[in-house]
């Protein structure tokens, strides 16, 4: 399936530039993560475990719930890290120190490594915002796009109405047209 002629091979790209005086400006491209298939292959989704009881039934216990909660936190940390890594992986100027392509546990370090980049806090915030925008996770941007769409639709409706009423006024027979 395509939208506006685009398919999965053309992900959304956001570019952030950090101006520098002494060296070349730092340019970072944030490419949307189109597929999480690789993540799913390497990391299993946590499952609420059960314990066997003497009567033969299986039920969750405090222990399995606690483990499920810990596993879930770990799972989402890895998923977030995977998103950060995949979004930035095509930037040759970024060198990861403790993140490895095929080690899901190491993906948890992505956010920490982004914090340690030699950029200011404000620039770091801009980078994170660009990553979120590229991946369609910016609420403000989504709201802005929705508002702009609704305004456009409303103005199109107003235009159509004004055309209809002007045609009705200009009609010589006095009959309403285009209704």
């Amino acid at each position: 399936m395509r939208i506006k002629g685009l398919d999965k091979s053309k992900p959304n790209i956001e570019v952030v530039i950090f101006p520098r005086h002494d060296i070349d400006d730092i340019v970072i491209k944030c490419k949307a993560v189109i597929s999480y298939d690789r993540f799913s292959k390497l990391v299993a989704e946590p499952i609420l475990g059960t314990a066997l009881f003497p009567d033969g039934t299986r039920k969750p216990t405090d222990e399995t719930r606690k483990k499920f909660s810990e596993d879930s936190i770990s799972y989402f940390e890895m998923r977030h890290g995977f998103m950060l890594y995949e979004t930035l992986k095509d930037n040759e100027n970024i060198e990861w120190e403790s993140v490895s392509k095929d080690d899901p546990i190491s993906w948890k370090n992505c956010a920490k490594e982004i914090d340690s980049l030699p950029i200011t806090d404000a620039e770091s915030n801009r980078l994170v915002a660009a990553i979120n925008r590229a991946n369609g996770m910016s609420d403000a941007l989504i709201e802005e796009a929705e508002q702009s769409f609704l305004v456009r639709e409303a103005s199109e409706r107003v235009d159509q109405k004004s055309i209809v009423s002007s045609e009705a006024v200009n009609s010589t027979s006095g009959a309403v047209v285009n209704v």
Partner: protein
Amino acid sequence: MNEGIFVDLKDAVITVSDGSATPKTARLRIGDGGFTFKQGSEREYKLDAGKLWRVREGNEVPVEVTLDFVWLHMHTTDVSFSDIILGKNGCVSTDTVYPCDPYACDIDIDFTKACGNVTYFDNYKIANFRVEPQDYDPKESMVKVSGKANSVEVPHSQSSSSDSSSSSSSTT
């Protein structure tokens, strides 16, 4: 005669595991019961003309273990507690030195007690435990199992951790 050491198993967690690369395990939360083990070699007291003279270590004696408990619930991988104890259903012996000897498994007994902001941990480790099949008697939630471990003692370790993450440990 050495009567052995008795440990109350109330609120303990018993983990049995086999020797697979990814060990098959069964972890049981214990409601009530006890664990007894006899360890230590017999010493020989030599006499000289009827008077005590010298003391020599006797032959090593394997630790004798008896577990008698009621379990509340059990977490297992794909095998049962009995499978791991008896070496059935694809379980592999933990005795990697002599894998052709009778089947053995490992047993860990853990106690966790919280007091204020400090948590105390106790662990007994029975390595290469071999059950005496005639002394294995599971009845629903009640289990009685006896056997020997191919070692002269049951290592016991204690540790604690507090909210400030400090910890200490000792091993006997």
